[in-house]
């Protein structure tokens, strides 16, 4: 069984308990003040923006949100922890008993959450040989720790959950979700048990998984390690292990005899955190459609699951899709296909905001394809011209005369001209060389500039050669 504890960095302008900006890559120790440095006499005051973000996350996960929760001090000594304690929440967390919807292989699952609580981040140690330098720029940055119940059953499920959480916090705007900057950091509790066994096995805590590139590898490695221990007749030790993403191994950090006692203390510097109905209503009003719901809606609208999954991975991308579908309600599936296959390739990793093709323009193109105005093949040419000129699909189609030729008489006239120009091949076809049909259809497509529907071209040519 697997439970995940994910630290989500909240996207606030200032730190959790100090009026100091939050920024990435600032000069070492420049984002500090007496509060961040834990100076004598300095006191924390809570940044309400962090509360709003946490409540938003709580509502989006259908959590029970406490009307009064408390900050608690979690004590341990480490140079990156300025006060000798971290301001966190202990027995009165802000949110409990929530859930996050996770799509795994086309099916919707619900992952139960034990709690979501607010806390402050620690600083960083930069090791340089025998010298370690403390950088407190990150110290005091607000975090939500999102803790699942031990309900995940495989590394794949854990990974899918991480993806869903990542998507959710970005869609809510509570976290920038930049994994390179450590905006989501993951610890995992892993235990194995025999098939059919009721009791959980001994739990091992894996720390430092950090980037969720490592989630799958770290958990798979730990599951395999525990099975190896048990099958070798040994017992899994209750311990904390540190994952080394570079080496792809974990190492014991702390055994059960050294279980940390954090000596939690309700923080006397901070009054209880009050969430009233007014705040709940105000935050509720800002909730967007959640990614899992959006994905369900898109699948119901006819999108292929993989396309819907990809398009809901980024709220801006999904917004683009919705805008396009609003302009061409019947063409959702075609729009999705064109975004996934053409537009994203064109963007080459740039955000959708940089798209050279407006959502309404793409909708025009999809509608033109779906209603037979142009063929899909010609659509690619039109798309390329849209990218180059920024013009709408219809304008390009009309300007370039790309409208599909759908008049059977016109097609028949073109076909007759081609047959007349190729009497020898017509003779051979009629003598039984069926394979020459492709030659005639090709000539027809070429003569029409690709504007004849291929099926119509084939049918017309076949009938003409048969002497009809």
């Amino acid at each position, binding site marked *: 069984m697997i439970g995940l504890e994910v630290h989500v960095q909240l996207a606030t302008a200032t730190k959790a308990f100090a009026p100091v900006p939050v920024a990435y890559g600032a000069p070492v120790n420049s984002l500090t003040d007496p509060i961040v440095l834990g*100076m004598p006499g300095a006191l*924390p005051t809570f940044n309400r923006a962090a509360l709003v973000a946490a409540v938003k996350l709580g509502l989006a996960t259908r959590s029970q949100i406490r009307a009064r929760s408390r900050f608690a001090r979690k004590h341990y000594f480490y140079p990156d922890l300025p006060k000798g304690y971290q301001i966190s929440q202990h027995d009165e967390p802000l949110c409990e008993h929530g859930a996050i919807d996770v799509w795994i292989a086309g099916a919707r699952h619900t992952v139960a959450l034990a709690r979501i609580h607010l806390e402050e981040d620690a600083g960083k140690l930069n090791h340089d040989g025998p010298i370690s330098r403390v950088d407190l720029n990150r110290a005091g940055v607000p975090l939500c720790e999102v803790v699942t119940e031990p309900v995940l059953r495989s590394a794949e499920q854990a990974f899918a959950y991480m993806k869903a959480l990542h998507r959710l916090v970005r869609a809510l705007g509570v976290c920038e979700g930049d994994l390179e900057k450590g905006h989501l950091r993951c610890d995992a509790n892993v235990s194995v048990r025999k098939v059919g066994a009721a009791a959980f096995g001994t739990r091992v805590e894996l720390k430092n998984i950090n980037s969720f590139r490592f989630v799958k590898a770290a958990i798979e490695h730990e599951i395999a390690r525990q099975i190896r221990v048990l099958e070798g007749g040994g017992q899994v030790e209750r311990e904390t292990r540190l994952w080394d993403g570079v080496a792809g191994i974990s190492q014991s950090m702390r055994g059960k005899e050294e279980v940390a006692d954090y000596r939690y*203390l309700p923080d*006397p*510097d901070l009054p209880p955190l009050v969430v009233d109905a007014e705040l709940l209503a105000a935050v509720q009003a800002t909730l967007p459609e959640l990614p899992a719901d959006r994905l369900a809606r898109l699948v119901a609208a006819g999108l292929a699951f993989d396309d819907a999954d990809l398009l809901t991975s980024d709220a801006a991308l999904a917004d683009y899709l919705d805008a396009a579908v609003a302009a061409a309600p019947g063409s959702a599936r075609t729009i999705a296909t064109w975004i996934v296959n053409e537009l994203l390739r064109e963007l080459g990793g740039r955000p959708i905001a940089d798209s050279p093709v407006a959502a309404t323009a793409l909708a025009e193109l999809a509608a033109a394809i779906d209603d037979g105005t142009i063929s899909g093949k010609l659509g690619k040419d039109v798309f390329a011209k849209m990218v180059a000129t920024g013009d709408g699909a219809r304008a390009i189609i009309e300007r370039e005369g790309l409208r599909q030729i759908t008049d059977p008489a016109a097609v028949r006239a073109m076909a007759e001209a081609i047959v007349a120009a190729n009497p020898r091949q017509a003779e051979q076809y009629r003598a039984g060389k069926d394979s020459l049909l492709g030659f005639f259809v090709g000539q027809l497509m070429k003569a029409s500039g690709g504007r004849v529907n291929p099926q119509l071209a084939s049918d017309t040519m076949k009938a003409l050669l048969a002497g009809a």
Partner: protein
Amino acid sequence: MDDVTALTATTLAADVRAGRRSARAITDAFLDRIAATDGAIGAYLAVDVDGARAAADAVDAARARGEALGPLAGVPVGVKDVIVTRDLVTTAASKILAGWRPPYDATAVARLRAAGAVVLGKLGCDEFAMGSTGEQSAWRATANPWDLARVPGGSSSGSAAAMAVRSAALTLGTDTGGSIRQPAAFCGVVGLKPTYGRVSRWGAIAYASSLDQIGPLAATVADAALALEVIAGLDPRDATSIDAPAPALTAALDRGVRGLRVGLPREYLPDDLDPDVAAAVARARAILADAGATIVDVSLPHTRYALPAYYVIAPAEAASNLARYDGIRFGARAKDPADLDALYARTRGEGFGAEVIRRIMIGTYVLRAGSYDAYYRQAQQVRALVRRDFDRAFAEVDCVLAPVAPTPAWPTGATPTPLDMYRADVFTLACNLAGLPGLAVPCGATAAGLPLGVQLMGRPLDEATLCAAGQVIERATGPAPRAPWPPRGAA
């Protein structure tokens, strides 16, 4: 000769505003007084001669420009060393903060300065405000100006001693379990512990955050009231500061006690109470009754549990608050530690004194996962009961009259055990547990000339009633005299 240092802060400020005296002359007189007295008294840990003169000159210059002056214009003040002062060494009387120059002012200090006060220097105390005698200072013990062989009380030892000998016109102390009121009583001055949250704790080096409160020590009740008016009020930098209008204390001073109901809690007047202390309370009771107050016997039944509850809660918070002294970012660091654990252990082992280490160990113990419920949680429940006792009493009376300490000042070195010292806080710490205001006001002396004080405790935010009643006692007993100089008992 006109002895400026004998005047009250109220008078000095009025004189400066009226142009009868210059702030500079006043400051120089107090600096001279420090030079003359402090070798024997040891109230000051640091004297900021240049800073004080510059501040005084600035007040005089402002007056010369015709600017309006603040309510404490030109009043020389001393600040307890657990209250941070920008660029002025602040150590909490601990080796672990040796030489630390804070980059900021405590809100209370900033408000004093804004009101025109002149900061003379930092006043000695028990290390991190943990003690009742001043003997727990890492730097120097302070003597009681009334008898140099006796303790001045603590932990605001220097704040009380400086007031007694008038080497400051006003001082700031902190009170976590009696640390303003008890030394005020021992030294024969007025000490006012405000309602919890009344004065910002921003810049008060934390001992026990839910109990700590900054307050004034002064020559008169009027001076204490004036000082509290200046330093009180909401501060956005302290989430526990109360959003209440500034108290109109000086205006309430003369309203007397006619019709006031004053409670005498029987738990505060045990049979074995020191006779001098009991006599002081009886004297105050008679004065208040004569002035028209109704004296009512009340009961605060959970009083006996307050002391043990306090000595769980305060050390628990202390252990947490003092975790930041790790030698990493400021203050002293052990030399050449073998590894990180040694850095912590030696920095803290060498930097903290015995009493501080004792309280850190008690606090660490009671917060362990295995003892939290039995100690800390239980103590919090007791605290709620103590608060309820007062709530019930204040349904019947407007304030409570009690002793400050069980005895007058005792001889230096005569505190045999830590527990004896803790027990000396028995009458003061319930006030902190309940978050109430408390005022210690002088009320006579022992036959040997040692000052005696009494304590008034009131409803939350009702410092005004305490000041009015305190002034009635003060007027009846005569203003608290300045300690004699040269002192009695001097070699």
